[in-house]
Structure formats: C-alpha cells, structure tokens
C-alpha cells in the first residue's frame, strides 16, 4: 500500500462501516511502519486520528475523514520531495503463461442457463463500458465515467473468475491495472488507453460470442490476436509505470484535494459521502422477457382483435335490436384495440445501441484515415421494431464508411478550402408521417455530378446526362459496382457499398434519397416503416381468391383501354404506361386460377415495381386497403417464391401476401 492507494481507499471509505474502517486502519499502520522521518510522524498522527473514530458518532467521523485527507496530503508532499518508492503492485503479478493456451474448454458443470445469463450480463457490461470509454475520450476528467468503466471491467473479471474463464478474467484484469493508474491520477487518460480498452472489450465480446455457440462442456478456440492484446497491455502498463517513476508526480493528490473539497461541502448537507461510486439512477426499470413469450403474447392479442371484430360484425349485433349489448361490445372493442396498440409498442427498442456502435466505428475509421472527425448523433431515443435494429445497422455502417472515406477531406484539404479542420458527421433519427427517418450527413466535399456522369457513361449506364435531373444522377450511385473513388482503400471504394445500402433499405420496405451540395456536403436520407411486422397492402381479387399486394410495390392501378394494350407474337401482352411499354403478367395464369376474369379491359392492371423492374399485373379487381401482420406459412407451404407470407384477415381466414420480386421472376421464366 503506497500513499496513493491509501488516499484512494480513504475516498472510498464508508464511515458507517466499522469493518471497513478497521481494514483502513491496518493499512495505515502498515504504511507507518514502512515510513521514515517526518512522514512517519505525519502518519502517526493519522493513526491516532483513526483510532479515535471508533468511539465517535457519524458526523465527527466524517469530519475525521476530511482531516485525515489533509494529513495524507501533507504526507504525499513529503513523499514528493523524496523520490517515491514504487512498490511492485500485486495487480501486475499475472504470470504470462495464463494467456498462453489457445483453446479453452468450458466446464460441463455449468448448466446452460447459468452460462447464458453470464454471457448476456457480460455483453451488457461490455457495451456499457464501451460507450463510457468513448465518452471519456471526449471528457477525460469525468471521474464518474471512469468509475463506470472500472465497474464494468471489475464485474467481468469477477464473474469470469467464478466460471474459471481465465482468458477473460486476465484480460479484464490487465485493463483494470492499466486504468487504476488513470484513476489514481498517475496517468492521464489518453488515446492509447482508449484503444487498448476498446480492443480488449472487442476480444472479450468475441470470446463471449464463441461461448454462446459452444455451450457448456464445449471447446472454444480463442480468437486471433488474443495474445497480442495481452502483450500490448503488459507493455503499456510497464511503459507508463517507467515514465511515471521518472516524473515522480503523485498526481493523485490533486484529485484527492478536489474530492476533499467536495466532501467538505457535502458533509455539511448531511449527505452520505461518495464512498463507493454511486450507480447512476436507473431512469426506467425494465424486465427482461424471453422473445418467444413476447411473440406469443403478440400473436394472442392479434387473434383477440380478430375475434373481437368477428363478434362485432355478427348479424345478431348488426341488426340494431340489442342496443345495450352493442354498447358493451364496442366498449370491449376499445379495450382490445388499446391492448393491441400496447402490444405493438412492446417490440420497440431505442436506436441508442446502434448509434453507439456507429460512434465507435467512426472513431476507429477516422483514426485510421488520419481525418479529424466529430460524429454527432441525434434522436437516439427514437424507437424501432427490434427485428429491424440489426437490419438498420448495415446500411448505416456503409454510409458512415463512405462519408469518412470519400466524403470527408483530409485536414489539409479542408484548410485549403476554408473549412474548419475538424469535420462533422451527423446521424439523426426521427419520426415523420408514420415512418422512421434516418439521416447520415457529412460536411465533406459532397457528390460531384460531373464525376458521376463521366463514370456512368464510361460504364455504359447512360448515353448522355443532359436531360437528367440531379436526383436521377444521384440515383446512379446506387447501381451495383459503381464507385467514383479514385483509389480502392481498405475501408471502401470497391463499389459495393451503396448498392448494398439501397437493397438493405428496400428490404426494410424503405426508400433512400440523396441531398447534395457540392463542396459542402452530402446527406443520405432513409425513410422506412416503423415496423416490419405490419405490412401495408391492397387486397386484390383473382377469381375466388384474394391476395395482398404490398402497397410499397404498387405504383398505380388502372383499368386499361383497348388502345393501351398491344400483343407480341399473339402470346405476350404489353401495356403503355407513361410512355413505357410494360409486360403484362396475368396472375390467374401464373397461379392457375380457373374462375378469373380473362378480358383485360374488364379487369385491372396493377403496375408493380421491384427495384428497377416494373410490370403490369392483371387482376380482377382491387377490393380494399389493409394492414396485416406477416406470418410464416409453415413447413411445406413456405417455399413458394411468389408468396412472402401469410396474414390473418379480418374474417379469420388466411390471406397470402404476394412477393412482387418472386412474381416478376416467375413470369420471366415462363
């Protein structure tokens, strides 16, 4: 125990806890025994002070702690004159061999539930610590953040020791020893600290991931780079220690001073001392529920809504004779609808976690690229369907990579054009018109119309850009294999990015738009529905069958004139739609429905689009608009490419949701 440690444990001391006081006293006496000269006198005074505590009440004990702090401070000043004796901390004494084995085996004794709990809990801890590290980088003096990180690593260390997971334990332990020096004020929190802690967290996470798939008794191969991180941590710790011995600056006393002032102020207000780091008050209490239970609840509520509708539409109710009964049923209906709305909200989770990952990504990338960057997130409390969270992350990653790699200039370049050297990337989320809007915006160089047009012409995508609007030109960058980047880098530039983004957004039934200002920046705006679970659709009739067409894919429905339709080789048909000839596909022929309308002019042509492809689908009639919950059709019926899934209709039967891409594909094959 050196003086720094004594000081720290003094800060953490709980004046109400006698056994803790006893422990502290022992350490103090020990230090006194090792001290020499005047230092010994000061510590002797301190011992006497502590001795007196046990007979005192709480208030005077608190005052005593403050006095003792002052004494220790004095002691440290003496110590500062003499070069400090850095004792080998026991924290460092980890034999390097423990990290040596590349394979670990999970004990069979743990039941899988325990293991799962452990993994989930530690994943959460790691995520919390990660975001705290990123915040601490911006605000390096924030003690509370440092404590959060500490708690994270400490708990990970504790629980993994319980499970005999040495590889995780040692990693957490090393990071802890590295951060101890920051907490004690011996080191400042630097980028190096952040890098190593983040990398260790990544490693811990990937070990946990592997554990998840192997289960109890399974063997896990440690991820690559495991030992390198251990090594890096060890070198880092021993280097920083050397530097500090030379400078000999017991910086902990500054912190101590600060805290003592705080304690003086707070002590009067009869508040408990900030003895242990107080966990930040949980704003909302939550309950963890298994996904399948939640899904079952949602299913049941959905069914209740349908049952309620069926009751409400019963002839006995509708004939208007039972006024009292009607009132009761509509009352029940209101409650059921409310329940339904509530159940839909249950699936929603905030985007915070996703945005956190983006902050991390941007940090790593900008460092790699030598660009100065500030990533600003807005609206991370916006909630989306939990099934969509992962699907949203992909396009965001691509867009941020693009922004950092291509959009943003190097600091020198920015300086030349008169921009501040630190660039900004914004990610914002919000609701509008019943959909989610996600924007990735950077203040970089923006898109160059000329470059895109040149590239597109070189690739033969267009002949001339004279008649194209800016929006049309921007849409070109979403073509597969399109990239205007001059060089392929590690991060992006292979021309796969934006194509992937567009497809991911379309999978979410969303759209992507570009707003650009050359030289000043570029924004990508994604609009998508709040939830994937509910499909907006139109019910179409073909013979005796009814199908649901997703509204997102419908461009227009028209009753065709004779003059709009042309036949090809007397077999295929074409429909003139806005100066474009679209192939006509008859749904009744594709699906073999016998009793359907066959006269084109008596039915309806629905123009559907899927990406770049468009066609006119012939149906008997459009019946109504509907919102349905997509469900799987189950084994044996699910492998039809034309059907995206089923939905329970208002009358309790199953309606089929058509997959427009599959239909176009099928029609082409015939």
């Amino acid at each position, binding site marked *: 125990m050196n003086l720094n440690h004594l000081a720290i444990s003094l800060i953490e001391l709980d004046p109400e806890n006698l056994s803790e006081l006893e422990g502290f006293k022992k350490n103090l006496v020990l230090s006194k025994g090792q001290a020499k000269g005047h230092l010994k006198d000061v510590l002797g005074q301190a011992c006497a002070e502590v001795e007196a505590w046990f007979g005192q009440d709480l208030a005077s004990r608190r005052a005593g702690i403050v006095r003792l702090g002052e004494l220790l401070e004095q002691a440290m000043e003496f110590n500062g004159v003499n070069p400090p004796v850095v004792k080998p901390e026991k924290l460092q004494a980890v034999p390097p061999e423990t990290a040596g084995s590349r394979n670990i085996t999970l004990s069979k004794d743990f039941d899988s539930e325990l293991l799962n709990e452990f993994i989930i809990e530690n994943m959460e801890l790691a995520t919390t610590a990660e975001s705290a590290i990123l915040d601490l980088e911006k605000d390096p003096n924030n003690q509370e953040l440092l404590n959060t990180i500490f708690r994270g690593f400490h708990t990970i260390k504790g629980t993994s020791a319980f499970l005999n997971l040495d590889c995780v334990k040692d990693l957490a332990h090393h990071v802890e020893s590295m951060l101890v020096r920051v907490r004690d004020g011996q080191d400042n929190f630097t980028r190096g600290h952040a890098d190593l802690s983040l990398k260790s967290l990544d490693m811990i996470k990937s070990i946990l991931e592997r554990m998840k798939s192997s289960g109890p008794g399974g063997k896990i191969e440690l991820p690559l780079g495991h030992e390198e991180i251990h090594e890096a941590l060890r070198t880092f710790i021993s280097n920083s220690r050397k530097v500090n011995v030379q400078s000999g600056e017991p910086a902990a006393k500054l912190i101590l001073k600060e805290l003592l002032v705080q304690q003086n102020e707070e002590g009067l207000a009869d508040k408990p001392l900030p003895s242990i780091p107080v966990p930040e008050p949980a704003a909302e209490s939550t309950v963890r529920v298994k996904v399948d239970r939640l899904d079952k609840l949602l299913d049941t509520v959905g069914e209740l809504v349908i049952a309620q509708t069926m009751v409400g539409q019963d002839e006995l109710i509708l004939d208007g004779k039972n006024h009292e009964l009607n009132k009761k049923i509509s009352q029940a209906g209101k409650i059921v609808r409310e329940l339904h709305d509530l159940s839909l909200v249950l699936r929603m989770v905030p985007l915070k976690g996703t945005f956190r990952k983006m902050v991390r990504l941007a940090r790593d990338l900008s460092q790699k690229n030598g660009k100065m960057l500030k990533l600003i997130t807005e609206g991370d409390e916006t909630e989306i369907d939990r099934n969509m969270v992962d699907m949203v992350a992909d396009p965001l990653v691509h867009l941020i990579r693009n922004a950092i790699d291509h959009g943003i200039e190097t600091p020198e370049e920015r300086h030349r054009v008169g921009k501040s050297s630190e660039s900004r990337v914004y990610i914002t989320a919000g609701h509008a018109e019943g959909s989610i809007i996600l924007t990735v915006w950077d203040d970089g160089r923006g898109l160059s119309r000329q470059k895109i047009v040149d590239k597109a012409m070189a690739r033969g995508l267009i002949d001339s850009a004279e008649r194209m609007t800016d929006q049309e030109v921007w849409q070109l960058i979403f073509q597969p294999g399109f990239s205007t980047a001059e060089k392929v880098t590690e991060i992006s530039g292979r021309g796969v990015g934006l194509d992937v983004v567009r497809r991911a957004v379309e999978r979410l039934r969303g759209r992507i738009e570009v707003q650009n200002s050359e030289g000043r920046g570029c924004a990508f705006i994604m609009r998508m529905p709040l939830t994937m679970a509910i499909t907006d659709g139109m019910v179409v009739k073909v013979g005796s069958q009814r199908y649901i067409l997703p509204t997102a894919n419908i461009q227009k429905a028209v009753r065709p004139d004779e003059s709009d339709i042309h036949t090809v080789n007397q077999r295929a048909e074409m429909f003139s739609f806005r100066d474009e000839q679209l192939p006509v596909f008859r749904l009744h022929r594709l699906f073999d429905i016998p009793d359907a309308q066959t006269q084109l002019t008596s039915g309806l042509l629905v123009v559907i689009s899927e990406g770049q492809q468009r066609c006119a689908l012939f149906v008997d009639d459009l019946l109504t608009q509907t919102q349905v919950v997509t469900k799987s059709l189950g*084994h044996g*019926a*699910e492998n039809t490419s034309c059907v995206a899934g089923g939905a329970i209709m208002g009358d309790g*039967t199953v309606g089929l949701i058509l997959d427009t891409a599959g239909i176009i594909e099928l029609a082409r094959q015939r």
Partner: protein
Amino acid sequence: MENLTATNDNQTARADSRVGKYLTFFLAGEEYGVEILKVQEIIGRMPITPVPLTSNYILGVINLRGKIHPIMDLKIKFGMDSSEITDETCIIVIKTASLMMGVLVDKVSEVVNLASGDIEDTPSFGADVNTEYLLGVGKTGGSVRLLLDIEKVITASDIIHLKKAAETSGSEPETETN
C-alpha cells in the same frame, strides 16, 4: 440357437418403441394410425386458403388461433383415390419438435392402446408400395391398422416420386441394407 434369441430380442426392442396409444382414422376405407403423442388436436373442416405453386398434396393454409398451419391431403400424398368431402372429414393437427402440419382425413375413428403383441412388422410389397413410412401393422379387435411414421410422411418430399425412383434404379436399397 443364440443367434435366434438375439434376433428375437431385437424384434421385441423394436416393437417396444412402437407400443402405445394410437389415434386411428380412415383414408378411402383403409384404417390408419398415428401416435397420439404427436397429435395436437382434431379440428373440423374450416376454410383453407390455397397456396399457389406448391405440391398438389398441400391443400393450403388455415388459421388456427392466430398461427398459420399448412394442410396436407394424405390421400393425394399417397396417390390414393380421392373421395367426397363429408361431414366427417376433419383435420388432425400434428405437432412434433420440428414441424406443425394439419392432415386432412376422411374420418377419425378411435384411440387404441397397442401392446407389443399387437404390432407386426410391415410386410414387403416390392416396388409397388413404399413401406418406408409405415411403422408396422396394428391388429386389435379384428381390425388391421397401418401405423404411420407421420414425420416421415410429412417430410418426404414425394412418396410416389420415391417409389418411382426405386423402380427405375432397379434394386431397392432398403432390402440390401436390411
């Protein structure tokens, strides 16, 4: 002599796994049985939504308390004559660990308890009838019931097709392995 007892033991062991309660039903006059533990429920006929471009024995899908289940017509699957739909036609909902499927049958008969002595191995009919999806033959109270390995029936992509494949390949692989 030792050999003989060994095979006997084998047979009883195999028969034991088949012992238990069976739900029996009729398909075109023949009586079939399915292990009761794999039956979730029996429901009356309800409106079935046909799914285009699926195998002909998949009649479509139904809504059972908010879950969608596919319905299979066993007679079409077995390549048997189809008969009229009557008031007694119903759907047996099969539930195993991996699948949920309704099967349409002409009539549900009864639940029988079959002891090992009541179950015989399926005789071989050559290439004409594929017996792979039969567990055996149950004989109680003077009636003969064909005990179905219902999971095999449902998951086999096409039983009639399998039979044809066996015919064209000339020799039956299962006779060789037996």
